[in-house]
């Protein structure tokens, strides 16, 4: 009876969709869609109630899978799987509650952007924690016998497990819906997502429900991670990284804060990706519609499989531009909590700081001269990396620290700088000047276009739209060569041989081994050819590049500083303080913000160009979202809104990495341990720390966001005030909601 019903339903489905999408593909779409639903619904509700954008949600998904693997392995695929289905989400739920209590809670009342920063730090911590506990090799997750193998219906074979995911996930989503709809907790949570202040006015301590919401969202993510990876049979590191961006796309499409939106968005994106774009759709043939009208439509449909992974970002950008609240969301009112910019007070006076800066530049200029005496020959390379990222962070600070717009997509410009200069050097000319010029032009143009669309939206929406643009570029990097080949083959512009040799981006491998000279039109020098002899030291190759980079960074600093001291800079600072007032004074903030974005984009592109010249290779990693996050970390670490703070942040970031990696920190301990016969174990610990340095970096960063939100540059002032490692309480708004007056 029951089977018969399904049978007849499938008959209808296969008859109705056979010409467009196969039932098999529909099932794949729903399966992936259901995993998305479970992942995105928690993320969305957490955002709605607490206004927290939780980047660590993907890591909680990964933890669900790893806990499950740890439970299933000793207990076996039968009972083990079912035990894991209950226990793993509970464990992750407890983790979620702990995260809310100890890290998210101290930040309520500050700008929601601090939550982005905090949860980004947590991503680094949790991701390395997984590797620390479970290693980096794949872990098996077995399924019960009953849920494996195919199932035959209407003459087709389906995966039995797909039905399990759809059924179980669907039931769980329905349960959550009922909980939200029919219980007291659900009513309070839904009301909280709409208007927290009024809930408090009614005598309900909404804050008490935050831990619960966070814990439940975490548990749902864990279920999603578990059932999806069990379907694959194994869990590998990095699954959280890969899926979190999709989850954001879904949450934005459905509407930030809306459970219904997450469900519709999750299923929609699953179906779109797995059932339509990946397999491609056959040409449409509609009666009544003439062939020449359908032809262009079919051409676009035919291109879809080539755009896999990109369509969702285009959709996300479209939604953010035309309907920021998404399908079902309510217009989210920004908490106007204060962005804490670096302070310039303290025992360092302006002239004192200037002298210190000059001294630092002088010191940096001397480094290559003494390169023979440095503890490691890598030191010069390390400082080159620090300087390059320092420039990148400076560029981001120009838009973030001076207009309050936090871009989560600055890797776009770094990637453009690296790829455009790389492809010019690789394919066209080896002139570094031409490569840099073309890259800066492209970077500036892209910044203007992205800025044109993004500046219309504020705060969290701005962060999301810049993220979408960067991901769009990142995904296109592996496809550009394919498009170029296709274009070449279908047009008479180039020959078939030429088509075979096309390597604009080099696909997922990237471009390797391009060289450059400093000059134009074939006239110029390679750095290796020059040698400047200074006593025992010969400056050539890398050491000369070092001076070029140092010069570029110092010049960029002074140029941006000069810009901010001009009337243009005064308007920008005005926008940061009070946009309304600037508007009343007759300036259009949108225009100024867009200009600032272009300036920021060009300097970030320059940093990418330097990276490519320095490394002589580029790969798609250059544009991945992790880069955007890391540079935001550096800006905050140093102190935003100061220009020099972010450079300091970059030095600290890589300095910390080097410190932990080079085992320098542990050297004395290993020595001391060896005296008492403990050298071995301590060496082991040190090796682990060196390998998992992100764990410590992330923890440091979390502590920074909570306790020192104004960054390193505020340390002198804090020392002055004798308020150790605490931010100034007078700068926190008295009103827990940030005030709407």
């Amino acid at each position: 009876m029951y089977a018969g019903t399904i049978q007849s339903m499938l008959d209808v489905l296969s008859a109705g969709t056979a010409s467009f999408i196969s039932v098999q593909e529909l099932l794949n779409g729903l399966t992936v869609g259901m995993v998305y639903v479970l992942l995105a619904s928690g993320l969305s509700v957490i955002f709605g109630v607490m206004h927290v954008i939780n980047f660590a949600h993907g890591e909680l998904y990964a933890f669900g899978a790893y806990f499950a693997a740890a439970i299933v392995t000793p207990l076996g695929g039968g009972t083990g799987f079912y035990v894991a289905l209950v226990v793993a989400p509970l464990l992750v739920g407890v983790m979620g509650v702990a995260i809310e209590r100890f890290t998210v809670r101290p930040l309520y009342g500050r700008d929601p952007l601090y939550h982005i920063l905090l949860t980004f730090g947590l991503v680094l911590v949790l991701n390395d924690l997984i590797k620390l506990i479970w290693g980096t090799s794949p872990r098996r997750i077995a399924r019960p016998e009953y849920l494996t193998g195919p199932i035959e219906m209407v003459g087709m074979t389906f995966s039995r497990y797909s039905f399990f995911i759809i059924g179980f996930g669907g039931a769980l989503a329905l349960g959550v819906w009922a909980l939200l709809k029919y219980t007291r907790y659900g009513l309070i949570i839904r009301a909280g997502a709409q208007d927290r202040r009024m809930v408090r006015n009614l005598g309900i301590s909404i804050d008490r429900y935050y831990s619960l919401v966070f814990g439940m969202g975490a548990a749902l993510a864990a279920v999603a991670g578990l059932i999806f990876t069990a379907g694959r049979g194994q869990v590998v590191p990095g699954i959280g990284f890969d899926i979190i961006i999709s989850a954001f796309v879904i949450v934005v499409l459905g509407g930030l804060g809306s459970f219904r939106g997450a469900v519709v968005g999750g299923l929609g994106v699953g179906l779109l990706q797995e059932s339509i774009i990946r397999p491609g759709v056959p040409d449409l043939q509609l009666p009544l519609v003439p062939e020449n009208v359908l032809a262009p439509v079919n051409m676009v449909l035919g291109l879809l499989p080539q755009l896999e992974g990109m369509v969702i970002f285009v959709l996300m950008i479209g939604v953010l531009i035309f309907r920021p609240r998404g399908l079902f969301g309510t217009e989210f009112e920004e908490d106007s909590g204060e962005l804490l910019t670096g302070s310039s007070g303290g025992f360092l006076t302006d002239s004192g700081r200037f002298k210190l800066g000059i001294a630092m530049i002088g010191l940096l200029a001397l480094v290559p001269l003494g390169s023979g005496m440095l503890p490691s020959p890598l030191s010069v390379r390390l400082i080159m990396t620090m300087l390059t990222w320092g420039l990148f962070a400076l560029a981001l600070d120009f838009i973030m620290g001076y207009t309050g717009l936090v871009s989560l997509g600055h890797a776009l410009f770094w990637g453009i700088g690296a790829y455009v200069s790389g492809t010019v050097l690789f394919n066209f000319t080896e002139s570094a000047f031409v490569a840099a010029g073309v890259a800066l032009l492209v970077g500036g143009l892209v910044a203007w276009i992205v800025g044109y669309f993004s500046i219309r939206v504020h705060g969290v929406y701005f962060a999301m739209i810049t993220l979408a643009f960067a991901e769009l570029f990142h995904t296109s990097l592996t496809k550009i060569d394919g498009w170029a080949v296709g274009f070449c083959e279908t047009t008479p512009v180039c020959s078939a041989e030429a088509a075979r040799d096309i390597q604009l981006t080099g696909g997922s491998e990237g471009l390797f081994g391009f060289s450059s000279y400093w000059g134009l039109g074939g006239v110029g020098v390679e750095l290796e050819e020059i040698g400047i002899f200074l006593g025992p030291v010969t400056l050539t190759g890398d050491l000369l590049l070092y001076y070029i980079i140092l010069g570029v960074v110092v010049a960029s600093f002074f140029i941006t500083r000069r810009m901010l001291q001009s009337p243009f800079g005064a308007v920008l600072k005005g926008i940061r303080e009070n946009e309304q007032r600037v508007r009343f004074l007759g300036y259009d903030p949108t225009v100024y913000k867009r200009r600032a974005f272009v300036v920021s984009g060009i300097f970030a592109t320059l940093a990418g160009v330097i990276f490519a010249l320095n490394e002589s290779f580029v790969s798609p990693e250059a544009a991945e979202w992790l880069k955007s996050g890391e540079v935001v970390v550096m800006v905050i670490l140093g102190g935003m809104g100061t220009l020099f703070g972010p450079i300091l942040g970059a030095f600290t970031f890589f300095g910390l990495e080097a410190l932990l990696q080079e085992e320098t920190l542990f050297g004395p301990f290993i020595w001391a341990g060896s005296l008492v016969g403990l050298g071995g174990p301590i060496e082991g610990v040190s090796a682990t720390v060196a390998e998992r340095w992100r764990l410590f970096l992330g923890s440091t960063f979390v502590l920074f966001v909570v306790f020192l939100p104004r960054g390193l540059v505020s340390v002198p002032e804090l020392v002055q005030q004798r308020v150790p490692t605490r931010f100034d309480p007078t700068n926190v708004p008295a009103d827990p909601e940030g005030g709407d007056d």
Partner: protein
Amino acid sequence: MSPTVAPDGGREVVLSVDGVDAGYGETQVLRDLSLSVEEGEIVSLVGRNGAGKTTTLRTINGILTPTAGTVSYRGEDISGLDQTATAKRGISLVPEERQIFPELSVMENLRLAEFGGATDDAAHSVSVDEALGMFENLAERTDNPGSSLSGGEQQMLAIARALVAGADLILLDEPTEGLAPYIVQDVMDIVEDINERGISVLLVEQNVHVGLELADRNYVIDQGRIVWEGTSEELESNRAILDRHLGVSV
């Protein structure tokens, strides 16, 4: 915690604000402000835009914390308490924007108030059914989302919600703002109705006529200070005050 009795030996003082300074960040709005509400009274606070009326209500309700002076409720110092704590004691703010939950139904808006609300004093607890009995318009639309209500209906729902939350003292911020004249009369009737149930009301109004008609006593506020206090008859006949502090003629 012993109930405070008014100096004239009359009714118990429900709310007493004594010498309060308050404001937003470094901007001080209220300066040495004092007022009181007695049991079962309707007291109106009138003044120009920006005089500090809404700030006064927010300071009483606990959204803002006074930097000097005290707010006491039935003899208890509640100066440092937050919104949740004052609501639990029976102080209910009906904000100017009404703040109806747009995606919750009328019924859900009321049920939410039932979950929260006063725990100390059950004297004025009004059940959801009773509240719906008082507001016929709402009773017909219990399943409609809050966003589908008209301005007048939203105001009714905001008041009904305060009743269900067990309000003993209602802080009513501009209840007639933006409403059509015939609905203004309805709202005034409702305020009198709830007052007859023994609920005290502190009313903030731009529309001096509404205040004059409803209130037992009036406070005139200007630049964060109380500049005049008296009955509605006294205020109506005091042209100087009306001109100087309110800029209206009656």
